[in-house]
Every structure is written in C-alpha cells, then in structure tokens.
C-alpha cells in the first residue's frame, strides 16, 4: 500500500485486512519505519532535526532490512498474506524528493522482495491537506519536509514537499507497474476497487492449493 499522508491508505488497509481475515486468510501486517532496531536513532535524529536526506534514507533502509528479514520473509514462507503499509516505493518517492540520487536509492533497495501487488492510492495534494486538517493532525517536521528549508510554514512546506513526492510516485507507477486507486472517491468505493485488485491474486493461490491437495 502506497500513498502520501492523507491518502487514506491506512483506513483502506485496515478494511482489507478485516475482509481477508474474515475469509480465512492468515494476514500479517507491517508498517514503514516500525522496527525496534533503528527507533532510537530515528528518534534522536528527528528530535534534534539532525537527519540529512542521506541518513534519513539509510535509516529507513535499515529499518526495512530488519523488517524484511523478521516480519516479511518469515510470514511469506509460512504462506501468509503480508500487508505492508508503505513499501520501498515510499523511499523511492520521498528520498528522491529530498535530493537523493534516484538510481542509488533503487539499488540500495535491490535486496527487497518484489511484492505480488503494489497499490498506490493517488490523491491530489489539496484533498490530502483537507483530510489531515479535518483530523487536526499536527504536521510533523520531516513529514512536512521542513528539513529541506523550503518554507518555515509547516503547511506550505508540506504542500511543496508532498507535491514533489507525488511527482515521484507518478514516475513509479509506470516504472514498477503500480496499480492506481483513485483515492478521492468514497471509502467504500475505494475498498471495492482494492478488494477486486487483491482478489485477482488470491484466485491464483487458491488454485495452487487445490492442485496441492489433489496431488
């Protein structure tokens, strides 16, 4: 699941997980930047605003590597469906928006497992801002790209930074064949599209199981 803040992807992911679990699929969820390993460094770095685009990028890659080996590969081996709230594309979009080399960051993540399905919840910047404001979300320093010094106003900075992130995502759609969901529509409509996309991949695995049983 990919998309900028306020794209509604976390809501969509929770609904999808409910549906999959209800249908009897074992589901495992993992979230971007959540490993215990780099938590201390990320926290210190963020608190002191001490992260550069490069260290920001590398810390997230470290977090990803840790989760890949402990939270992504083992559940995949166990035949579970891994739902990742953000994946490598987040790094490709955000790090490049911060000025990190586009090829370098792709090669950095070349150890990642290619997902069976990558869904991008595309939303215009205005809609994302409206949603975040409605929830009275306080824009965080790095999420708003304040480290780049483009604007001292958090909202303005967020617009500039996430605008660049959206441009990078658009590039990724073609490059990596991301499935795009129009994230402006109603929650239910989006979820319907989302489930349809996912079910195409589930059918294949059902067939596999049937073959296994008859063998």
């Amino acid at each position, binding site marked *: 699941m990919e998309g900028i803040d306020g794209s509604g992807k976390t809501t969509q992911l929770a609904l999808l997980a409910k549906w999959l679990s209800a249908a009897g699929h074992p589901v495992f969820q993992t979230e971007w930047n959540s490993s215990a390993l780099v938590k201390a*460094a990320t926290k210190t770095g963020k608190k002191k605003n001490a992260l550069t685009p490069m260290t920001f990028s590398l810390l997230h890659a470290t977090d990803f590597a840790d989760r890949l080996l402990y939270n992504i590969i083992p559940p995949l081996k166990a035949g579970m469906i891994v739902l990742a709230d953000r994946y490598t594309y987040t790094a490709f979009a955000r790090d490049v928006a911060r000025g990190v080399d586009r090829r370098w960051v792709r090669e950095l993540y070349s*150890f990642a497992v290619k997902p069976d399905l990558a869904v991008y919840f595309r939303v215009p910047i205005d809609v994302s801002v409206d949603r975040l404001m409605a929830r009275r979300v306080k824009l965080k320093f790095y999420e708003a790209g304040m480290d780049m010094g483009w604007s001292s106003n958090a909202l303005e900075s967020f617009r500039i930074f996430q605008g660049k992130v959206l441009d990078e995502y658009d590039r990724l759609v073609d490059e990596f064949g991301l499935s795009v969901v129009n994230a402006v529509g109603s929650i239910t409509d989006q979820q319907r599209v989302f489930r349809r996309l996912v079910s195409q991949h589930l059918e294949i695995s059902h067939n596999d199981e049937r073959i296994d049983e008859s063998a």
Partner: protein
Amino acid sequence: MTSGSMNLPDADGGTDGGGKPGHYYSYGIPYLSIGNYPGKLIAIEGTDGVGRSTQITLLREWLEVQGYGVIETGWTRSELMSPTIDLAKSSNTLNKLTFVLLYATDFADRLEKEIIPALKAGFIVLSDRYIFTALARAGVRGVDRTWIRNLYGFGIAPHLVFYLRIDEKTLIRRVLQSRGMDYWESGMDMKLGDDIYESFRAYQRQLLKEYGSMADEFGFRVLDARRKVDVIQDELRRQIAAFLAESETLSPGPAALRVE
C-alpha cells in the same frame, strides 16, 4: 614499497574502481557538490592491532607543527548512530544486512557533518579506517560486492589510502594481547564453528584476504605493519609530504605555513 605514482588522473587504461581522489565514487550526494575543495582526505586502513591510532596521533602532531589544520574521524563514532550500533551489537539482533546498513548510515552522518565541511574548510582529514573496513567485513559475510560498492557510491575517494598490513599470525597475537576476541570481531555471527578461537582465526584470515583483494581495486599504498612504529611513521610522512608538495604546486591547497 609502493611509490607515489597511484591515482594519477587519466593514466591511460589505469581506470580502477578507486574513483578520482577528492570526488564521489559514483552516484554521490546530488545536493552536495564537492568539486575542488581545498582539503585532503587521508585514510589509514588495516585490521585490528596494526597500530592505526598510534600512527594517526603521530601524523597529526607532525602535520600541525607544519601548520596544517587536521581533523580526525573514525569508524562508528557518529553522535547519531553510536548508541544504536552499540545496542544492536550487544543484543545480537543484527544480521549482515542491517549490520552493513547501520555502518553506512553512520558513515553518511560523519561524511556530511565532519568530513565534507572539513574538506571545504581546507583541513587535512585523517580517517582511522574508511569505507574499506565496511567493504571487507561485508565481503567476508558474503554480502553482494556490487551492491555494497553501489551503496558506498556516495563516499568520497580519499587522496591517499594507506593499508597497514600484517600477516594472520601477527594479527591474531596482537588482537589477543590487546582486547581479546569479541563476538563480532570473531565472526561468531557467521557460525563458522563452535570453537571461538577457530572461528576467530578463520574470520581474520578471510578479512585479510578481502583487504588484499581491495589493494589494487582502490589503489592502496601498502605498508608492512610488522615494523617498528617509527619506521612506519617515517614512511607515512615521506609519502604524505611528497603528496602535499605535489598538490600544492598543482593547485592551492592546505598549504603549510611559510614564514616569508
């Protein structure tokens, strides 16, 4: 041993993976251009027990007496990452990939906050170990060679790399004498065997092999580190002095103070 003929720009056919001294190895950091900074980056590489820090202390003194500004940097000493690396090491939760990435993060932090500003300001940066330490450790652990070289493509190729080389037997004795074997430096994470000494020995042997294979690739100036401290120091000074003299005639650099 090696004379000061390495890393000459555009030596025909002599292109190696070593990069152009003072420039990024490959992709670099696009938002930080570093062209023609006046400072010089000198790396002292080698395994444990070769006396790197002793040599660096002596070099610093010698350079400062001549009027050069000197800054030292080490491996895994960044404010940002030191606690995390210590924690990860002590809890053994590191695997080879996160190990490599934590060190790369640490290096990036020091590169941007210490090394690049120092080079810009015209300092001589003496680096106690450099990316080659990471490449050697990763190489021993079977990390993909191309991947790790791309990863460190944001690094700056030093103007000089001195590799203080010792043989396996000397290395093992020196490490045992100084701080003994520890889990990581014994390569115990690699499960080479239950016997910690055998594992340690196999690890150090492979490490030496990795360093050896990088000597050509990155144009190391190899020094025999089994010799006396002052003999090695004299050799280092001779080569550094020649390099500084040469670069000062070519372009304005961190010139020594001259009383006119």
